[in-house]
């Protein structure tokens, strides 16, 4: 069993089909047809990943996303029929790590899920410094002056990717490949939103970032240690 996936989608045919595809890939799907039941099911099954339809009857997908994010750093992949910037950004800002736009190819979805679950392999003990933060890669923790800062796995990965090569400027495309596992060019808004979210957690003043620095016209780099 590669992992347990909670599928929250009101379209039963799609949910069932998702279940079939994921089971075929070796995952254990748990189906949920409406937003209100999502949180209880999440608590009950403790999935390794959540597939969430943004437009749900009852509780809105955005609210479900926030509720889950409030109690767990579990990877959340949104399913959305909307590609407008506002919708995507709202979804990402409410805590989703990645999103897949309908209609998607099953392989694409599986690649996204795999990328989000890939990180379970045991990393070598490693201690990194970025800005005035200390990152314990194996221990999965970030501290400023000894105070731990709570990050989701994705935010952690993003920070580690930048901290490992503080001399390098990362374009959004490179970050998409390294952190999200996109092999082809994808939506760079993912990077923008997550950098903002990361900054809001790790920067002393998110308006004047010192840990994750923007390089205008190119991308981002780690701030000086």
């Amino acid at each position, binding site marked *: 069993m590669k992992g347990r996936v909670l599928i929250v989608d009101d*379209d039963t*045919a*799609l949910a069932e*089909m*998702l279940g*079939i*595809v994921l089971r*075929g890939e070796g995952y254990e799907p748990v189906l949920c047809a409406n937003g209100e039941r999502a949180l209880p099911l999440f608590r009950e099954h403790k999935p390794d990943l959540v597939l969430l339809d943004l437009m749900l009857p009852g509780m809105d997908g955005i609210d479900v996303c926030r509720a889950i994010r409030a109690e767990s750093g579990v990877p959340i992949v949104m*399913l959305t*029929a*909307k*590609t*407008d*910037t*506002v919708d995507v950004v709202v979804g990402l800002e409410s805590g989703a790590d990645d999103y897949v736009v*309908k*209609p*998607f*190819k*099953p*392989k694409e979805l599986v690649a996204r899920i795999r990328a989000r679950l890939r990180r379970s392999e045991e990393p070598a003990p490693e201690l990194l410094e970025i800005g005035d933060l200390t990152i314990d890669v194996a221990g999965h923790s970030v501290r400023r002056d000894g105070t731990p800062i709570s990050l989701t796995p994705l935010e952690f990965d993003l920070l580690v990717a930048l901290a490992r090569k503080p001399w390098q400027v990362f374009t959004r495309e490179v970050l998409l490949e390294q952190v999200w596992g996109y092999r082809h*060019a994808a*939506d*760079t*808004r993912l990077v923008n939103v997550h950098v903002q979210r990361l900054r809001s957690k790790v920067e002393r003043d998110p308006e004047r970032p010192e840990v994750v620095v923007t390089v*205008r*016209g190119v991308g981002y780099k780690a701030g000086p240690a």
Partner: protein
Amino acid sequence: MPRVQRAVRRSWRRSVALWRRSLQLRVVTTTTVFSLVAILVLGNSLITRVRDGLLDAKVTASLVEASTGSRTAQEAFDSADRSEAPAVYDTLVPDLVRTLSRAGGEPDGSKDVVLLRGPDVDDPQAPLGRSSFGADVDAVPNALRAQVQTEGVQQWTYSKVLRNSGKTVPVVVVGSPVLVPQIGTYELYFLFPLNKEEDTLGLVRGALLLAAFGLVVLVGGIAWLVTRQVVTPVRMAARIAERLSAGRLEERMRVRGEDDLARLAASFNRMASSLQQQIRQLEDLSRVQRRFVSDVSHELRTPLTTVRMAADVLHEARAGFDPAVQRSAEILQTQLDRFESLLADLLEISRYDAGAAHLDAEPTDVVGIVRHVIDAMETLADARGSELVLVIPRTPCVAEVDSRRIERILRNLVVNAIEHGDGRPVTVLVASDDDAVAVAVRDRGAGLAPTDVTMVFNRFWRADPARARTTGGTGLGLSIALEDAHLHDGWLQAWGAVGDGSQFRLTLPRRRGVELQGSPIPLEPRDSARRRPLKVGEPYRTVGAPGAADG
């Protein structure tokens, strides 16, 4: 000097422009000019009549006074003691002249008297001529003297006299002969100065001028006021019409009173209301329609995803099916791809139609995007046997663009060039100047007819309906590319010649919101058939298969 000239020319041009633009100025000016002319004509005739009247009266009075004077003189001569002649006249003549000049007139010398010897007086003892103001004999015009001498009765004329003060004064000269006993005929002239009449006339003229000036100013002012009454509502109508056309449909004119202007305002407002209503209806209709397209596209997505996954599962398992089912699964798969891209393009277009497209622009090196696109297209180009040639400047071409959209435009152009390039090389040229960055994609295929050059951007337009589509475009690609270019305030233009391929040129301003003035790349490629003969060092052109001479 040239600066002065320029300033003069500029102010002249400004005045001409103002004259053309302002109805009020024109009306006020023409009214003023016409009333000025009318007043001048009227005033002139008035002054002439006043002068004639004044002079007539003066002449009549002068003639009467002169006759009286003549009679007095004749009586004085007749009653003089003849035995003492001519010595008696030496005292009589000056006395007479003094008396006559003072008689009946004002004492300030308002009238002068001249007594002159007639031509028939030849006695050297006879008294000389005499005048009341020194011996200015020349004051009497010779023509009048001749008349008096020949006619022998009272004659008069106008003349001018130089006074001691140095002023020339107009006068009425009245003359008549006086018979001096034993000596002969003398001529007695009276000079009545006209300075009083002249003063009166000057006063009248001054008053008239003042009145004329006042009247002209008044008429101009009235014209200004009256036209203002008319022009103000017209200007308001123009201003409101401009606002209406700028999209502020709720703007209306103020209606006051019941006159023609109020009627104009009322009908204007009615027109605006009906326009607004119709535009609203159209907007609603188009909003509903756009909404519908968008909703349909969205609603289609979920079932399409399900079908897609089901088809994929079938496709994966097709090895175990019999050949017909196997082929069906494959066809299902490829057609779903096509369906998907069509749906995606439709959605993109509907987003543009709804005005919901949003530009995520930041300074980006366009060369980088071009390289990225070319790398991704190598496989397709290889499959079609087309070589992709990239011509780029040494320096980066940074512009404020949304790289996702620019990449989409370029991918579209390059795919089209490969698809229509008939296996010949496709050139991608990047160039920039201070204001713009341009990318041109040139193919050397069958080419576009000049009439088709604008049509290519139409939705679902196909150059040749009979032509098979192999790369499976949706027919919306160039329309979307054009919208993407417009979103950047950029240009996307096509050039084509039958048999000479085509070139699509994308021009983007370096900074957002700056209007493009030109493109660093000419629309027609430098190696087009038409331009090639002009190349230096190429005396003649081989006529052969189109594109064969390219290299």
